[in-house]
C-alpha cells in the first residue's frame, strides 16, 4: 500500500470514489453498529408491538444506565491498553459503604462523599498496583474484582441494606421534564466522555499510550499518572452508579453489579475498542452497550428464556470482532 502512495504522489483523502467512501464508512465500527442497531430495532418493532412504546424505552434506557456510566471510563482506560475488571465489584462495595454510612445516620451528602471518595481511592489502587508492582492490568483488576466483591459480602453480611432517607432516594427516582434522572446522569457522562477523549489532551493521550506504551514514555507522556487517574475515575463513576442504584431500588444488595464487568468488556469489544489498545471511541462503546441491552430487551419482549441473552451476546462478540479482523486482513493483503 505504501508503494502506491509513494508513486502517486500526494494522496488527498477528498478525491476518493463515492463507492470507496461508502466502503470506508462501513469499515468504521460506529457506523456499521448504528446500522445494525436500526435494523435490529426495525425487526423488533415488526415482531412485537410492545417494542415501540415509551414505557419500553424508559425501561430499556434505565436498565442500561448503570452499565453505560461505567462503560465510558472503562472505554478510555481500555483504549490506553488498561482493561478494568473491577467495575462491578467497585459498584457494589462503594454502594455498600455509602449505604452503611446512611444507616449509621450520617447526613446524606457526607455519606455520598465518603462513598465516592472510597470509589476514587479503590479505583486508583488498581493503577498503583499496576505501576508499582508491575502487574498486567488484567491480573491486577481480576484481583481487585474478587477482593472488592468479597469485601462487599462481608460488609453486607449476606443480606441487603435498606430503609434509606427520602432525601437520598430522590437522587435515583426523581424525573426532570418527565425523564428519569438516571437517564440524564448517563447522558451527561456519555457526552462528557466523548468530549474529553476528543478534546482534552490528558485523556486523548489514551491513544498514544495504547498504541505504544514505550514510545509514549519516550514522547514525554506521563503514562503512570494517566493509569492511576483513569482507574480512579472508573472507580469513582462505579461508586456513583452504585449509590444511584441503591437510591433507585431503595436497597443495596450484595448482587449489585454482578457480572457487569464482563458485559461491559464485551460491549466495548463489540463497540470497536481493541483489547490491545490504541483503537476505539466512546461512541462505539456506547453503541456496544446499547446493543447488549437491546438483546436483553428483545428476549424479554419475545418471552424467550433469559439464558439465551448470554448465548446471543457471545455470538455477537465473536461475529463482530471476527468480521473486523477479516476485513482488516483483506485490506492488508489486497
Amino acid at each position, binding site marked *: 500500500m505504501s508503494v502506491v502512495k509513494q508513486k502517486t504522489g500526494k494522496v488527498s*483523502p477528498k478525491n476518493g470514489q463515492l463507492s470507496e467512501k461508502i466502503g470506508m464508512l462501513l469499515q468504521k465500527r460506529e457506523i456499521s453498529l448504528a446500522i445494525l442497531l436500526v435494523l435490529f430495532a426495525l425487526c423488533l418493532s415488526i415482531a412485537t408491538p410492545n417494542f415501540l412504546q415509551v414505557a419500553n424505552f424508559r425501561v430499556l434506557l434505565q436498565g442500561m444506565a448503570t452499565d453505560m456510566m461505567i462503560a465510558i471510563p472503562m472505554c478510555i482506560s481500555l483504549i490506553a491498553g488498561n482493561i478494568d475488571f473491577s467495575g462491578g465489584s467497585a459498584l457494589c462495595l462503594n454502594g455498600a459503604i455509602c449505604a452503611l454510612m446512611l444507616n449509621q445516620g450520617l447526613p446524606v451528602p457526607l455519606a455520598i462523599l465518603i462513598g465516592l471518595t472510597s470509589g476514587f481511592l479503590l479505583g486508583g489502587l488498581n493503577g498503583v498496583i499496576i505501576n508499582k508492582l508491575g502487574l498486567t492490568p488484567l491480573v491486577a483488576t481480576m484481583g481487585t474484582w474478587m477482593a472488592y466483591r468479597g469485601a462487599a459480602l462481608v460488609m453486607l453480611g449476606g443480606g441487603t441494606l435498606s430503609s434509606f432517607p427520602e432525601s437520598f432516594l430522590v437522587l435515583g427516582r426523581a424525573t426532570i421534564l418527565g425523564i428519569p434522572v438516571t437517564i440524564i446522569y448517563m447522558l451527561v457522562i456519555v457526552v462528557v466522555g466523548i468530549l474529553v477523549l476528543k478534546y482534552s489532551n490528558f485523556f486523548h493521550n489514551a491513544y498514544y499510550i495504547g498504541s505504544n506504551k514505550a514510545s509514549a514514555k519516550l514522547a*514525554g507522556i506521563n503514562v503512570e499518572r494517566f493509569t492511576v487517574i483513569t482507574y480512579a475515575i472508573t472507580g469513582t463513576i462505579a461508586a456513583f452508579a452504585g449509590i444511584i442504584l441503591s437510591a433507585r431500588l431503595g436497597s443495596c444488595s450484595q448482587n449489585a453489579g454482578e457480572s457487569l464487568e464482563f458485559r461491559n468488556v464485551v460491549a466495548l469489544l463489540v463497540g470497536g475498542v481493541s483489547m490491545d489498545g490504541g483503537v476505539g471511541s466512546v461512541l462505539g462503546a456506547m453503541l456496544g452497550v446499547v446493543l447488549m441491552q437491546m438483546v436483553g430487551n428483545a428476549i424479554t419482549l419475545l418471552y424467550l428464556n433469559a439464558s439465551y441473552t448470554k448465548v446471543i451476546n457471545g455470538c455477537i462478540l465473536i461475529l463482530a470482532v471476527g468480521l473486523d479482523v477479516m476485513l482488516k486482513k483483506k485490506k492488508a493483503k489486497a
Partner: protein
Amino acid sequence: MENTAIKLKSITKVFPGVRALNQVSFEIKEGDVHCIIGENGAGKSTMIKILAGVQGCDEGQVELFGTPVHFKSPEDAKKAGIGVVYQELSNFMHLDVASNLFAGAVPTKRGRIDYKALYQSAREILDACGLDYINERADMNTLSLGSQQMVEIAALMHENARVVILDEPTSALTQVEVEKLFELIHDMKKKGVTIIYISHRLDEVVELADALTVLKDGEHVATMPMTKEITKDDMIRYMVGRDVAYEYGVGTSEIGEVLMEVEHLSSGKAVSDISFELHKGEILGIAGLEGSGRTELLETLFGWRETTGGSVKLHGREVSIRNPYDAKKNRLAYITKERKILGLFLNLDIRQNIAAASTERYVQGGTVRYGKIAENAKKYIAAMSIKCSGLAQKVLNLSGGNQQKVLLSMWLSADPDVVLIDEPTRGVDVGAKAEIHLLLRDVVSKGKAVIMVSSEMPELMASCDRVMVMYEGRCTGMLNNKELREERLMTMASGYTESPQ
C-alpha cells in the same frame, strides 16, 4: 561557534553481566555534526539513552551548554532541548501521521485539542521536510518503514531542539530518503543545531561528520575532528582494533543443479510475472528500490502473501505454499527486515530464540535435550561474534545489531534448503557484515541456496552470484556477478529494461 554543547565526564553504565560504558569522557562542539561509530554492542545507543534521560548512568556527569544536568525522564531531556530518533522505530502504529508528529505535544487552544491546527501544522512540517508524498491523515502502519522513519525524523523539526540525536537513522531508509535526510541535517546545521549521528555506514560518516568519536566495548577510543586524511580504513581500524577485509569479496561456491524453479509468479499488483531458477550453491540477490516488490516477492514465496498466479517447483516437484507452515515443511526459511515485529521473541533469552525455528532438532528419545540447544546457540554466538552477557540474556536487552545476528542464527539453525533473507546486514557493523556474508557462503556451499534482498549495492556485488533487478513488481533484468556495475543496477532499478545483447 566554539562553545561546547555537550560534555560527558567519565560516564559509566553497568548492566548485569556487561559494562556497557566505562569511564567515557568527551566533548561535542556546538553546531557540529558529531558522528559516533563503534561495533555492535559498543555502547553507542546506551550513551544516547543516557543523554536522552531514558536511562540513568551509574557514575559520571553530563553537562549541557555548560550546566550540569540530571535528566530523570525523557520529558526532562525534551524540555532541555534534546530531540532523539531512536535506533528502533518508536512510533504509534494505530494513529495517523499528524498524531505521530505531535506525540506528547498536541496543539491546544483554550485547553482543547485544536485538530485544525494539528493537521495544518503537520502538513506544513511534512512539506518543509520534502515529504509531500506522505498524507498527514494516513495511518502510520500503512506507510513503508522508510516513510515511518522519516516521519519520526520530521517530528523533531517542530520541537526546535538545540541538540538532535539520530541513532542509525538510515538503516531503514531508501537512497532518496537518505538524501532528504542529509538535506534536513544541513538545514539544521545552518540554524546552529548540534547533531549527534550514529551509523554503521562509513560513507555517510565521511560525508557528514565534522567530528568523530569511536567507542569500543564500552570504552572511549578517540575523539577527533574529521579531516580529509581520515579514511574509512582508519575508522575501521579504530573500531575493530585490526584491519578488516572491507571489500569482502567472499568468492563463489560450486553451482549445482536447479533447486527451485519459479514460473510466472504473481501476487496481486505487488508481484507480477516473476520467473527465475535458483541453483544449489547459489546466492541470488534481488535489487530494486523500496516498493519495487522485492520484499513482497519473498513474502509470496514464503506463503505469507497470497499467490495469485504462477508456480513454484522445488527439487523438480511442484509445491503449493499457502502459509509459512507449508513453507517451513518445504525447508524454506524467511528472515524479515522488521526484526522486532516479525521474527524475534524479545522477552525470551538468546538460547530460546536461536532454537525457536528448529525445536524438533533437539529432541532425542522423546525428550528435549537442553544441552544440545545450548551447544547450538554457543556455536552461532561464536560464529557471528554476538556480543552478550551469556546464553540467558534476554534478546530485548541486546544491541540492535546483535539482535539481527540472533535472528539470522535462529533460521540458519533450522538448516533450510532455501534461505529467503531481507536486508541481512541492516544495523550490523562492518566486521560482522563480512562474517555474515562468509557464513551465508558457507551455507550455500553445502548444497543450499540463498535469495537475498538488499538496498546496499556493495553488499550485492560482493556476495551474490547473480542479481535480479525489480521495478514495480516486475523483473527488469538479471545480471551475473561479472556484469554487476552500480550504474547498471541503478538504471534497471528505475524501470529501464535492458534488451539482451
